[in-house]
């Protein structure tokens, strides 16, 4: 089983967010970056589990500058067999998906797993785009994935429930909570990661179809209105008359 896992970097949720260049750009100075949790905890670990069951090869791929190598090394330490970095700033999802598709189209992957979304921009776009570029079936938000010969059985989260479907390999899956249990890299993994191959690939030309205009920070919430715990009629009145939500 030849599996591709797409990994991205994202600021830690607790990071302080600021902007520069007239609020046109994210200011990454002093920001701690982590591997996107959906990629690390679920997509990557499920790929490794499948490989452990049926044999094969897990490739971790990132589109990013050389500053992402720490994240790639972590993926290798957790258990990916090899890594690929496409050497470009991931300006938007379609650009990124196009780069990944160009790389993957001749590699014969049986299964491609991405995270359900990045926790910074919450695009939830890339998996669907990649599937379309490669003309493959796609199921998003998988909370369970099992293989049955040349078929994948996937359970995905939908509003108010789950949907279970069957698709032929190769296919693209996006990983949600529940797909696997997080694995912490151990010493042996960290040592082994050093000798695993990391290939750097140059990007292919692509004209982006969207452009960032700028960021705004929402006005600080006006301070909270405290209500006497013995007067819940007052709270209901405020919700009805002032907030107009009842």
């Amino acid at each position, binding site marked *: 089983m030849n599996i591709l896992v797409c990994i991205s970097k994202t600021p830690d949720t607790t990071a302080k967010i600021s902007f520069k260049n007239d609020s046109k750009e994210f200011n990454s100075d002093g920001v701690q970056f982590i591997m996107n949790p959906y990629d690390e905890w679920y997509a990557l670990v499920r790929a490794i589990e499948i490989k452990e069951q049926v044999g094969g090869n897990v490739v971790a791929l990132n589109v990013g500058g050389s500053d992402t190598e720490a994240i790639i090394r972590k993926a290798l330490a957790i258990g990916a067999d090899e890594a690929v970095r496409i050497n470009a700033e991931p300006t938007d999802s379609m650009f990124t998906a196009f780069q990944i598709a160009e790389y993957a189209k001749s590699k014969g992957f049986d299964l491609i797993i991405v995270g359900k979304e990045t926790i910074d921009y919450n695009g939830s776009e890339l998996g669907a785009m990649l599937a379309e570029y490669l003309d493959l079936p796609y199921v998003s*938000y998988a909370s369970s994935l099992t293989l049955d010969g040349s078929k994948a059985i996937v359970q995905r989260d939908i*509003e108010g429930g789950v949907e279970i479907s069957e698709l032929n390999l190769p296919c693209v899956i996006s990983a949600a909570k529940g797909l696997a249990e997080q694995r912490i890299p151990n010493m042996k993994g960290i040592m082994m990661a050093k000798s695993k191959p990391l290939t750097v690939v140059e990007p292919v030309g692509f004209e982006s179809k969207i452009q960032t205009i700028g960021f705004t920070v929402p006005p600080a919430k006006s301070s909270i209105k405290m209500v006497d715990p013995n007067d819940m009629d007052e709270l209901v009145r405020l919700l009805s008359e002032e907030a107009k939500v009842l």
Partner: protein
Amino acid sequence: MTAIVFGESQKGICKKSAFEVVSFAHQMGVQDIIALVTEDTTNGDVLGQYGASKVYKIKGLDSGAFDSKVWAKAIADFSSSHNGNIVIFSHSSFGKSLAGRVAVRLGAGIVSGVNALPEGDLFSKSVFSGKATIKYQIKSATKVISVMGNTMKPIAIGQSVAVETIDLGAAQSSTKVLEIKRVEGTVPLPEAEIVVSAGRGLKDPSNWGIIEDLAKALGATTACSRPVADAGWRPHHEHVGQTGIAIRPNLYFAIGISGAIQHLAGVNNSKTIVVINKDPEAPFFKAGDYGVCGDLFEIVPKLTEAVKKFKETHS
């Protein structure tokens, strides 16, 4: 300008999100709004009341047999042949699987999770766990967007319209839905207008009765913090936050939840937040609109009574 709007349905009935996306197109000022629905949809005509000028059922698409590849091809082909300038989805588990595919097929720029009406070709969405809003320009002639739930209150402005069935040709199926399991009886969390959510402050799963009573009085859906779902006190589909579901109801009650950033990431786009916590230093009080400081076991039953009284006098 022509907008192609995809109206989702469940068991053949248009969902609230279908009315929302049609209303969104209408509020954008689009005159020519074409709504597409699955073949099994029985109330597509109602989309006309929200602004759709035409409604088509696509032959072969069934709301119980989702196939992102086949559906995306149908929607993109339809948009190309009807000169769609913008294709609009709801930012749901279906819309998210389709929007990116359709954008690639059409060579269109896409912004997903749009949270406000656009200004010309500028579209905004919330990023960094609600800590900022980003504005994008979509440069391509054809545009694709998905709109966050509860962004636009559906407003009926017109008449029902006739529904036509269109055959876009058969496509080879790529995914076979084996089963759909739904929690019956409640509004799914992402669609709920009022959410009553509780955390570890409840102490024990057997205490959830007071939360359910309040939710029932309000007609609300229940949710919970992550440790509560992880401990098996509540089902996983109730877990909201960064690793759970992100919601933006009109009214969110946070009861016995401390307000960690990972929790706030999934709820801080709610219009109004009520915080009930015994710790005056709980971080949630900084993110709330109304706060009650005290013991939830005393406050919640009183609140439920107050809500019942209000409902009796206002219905």
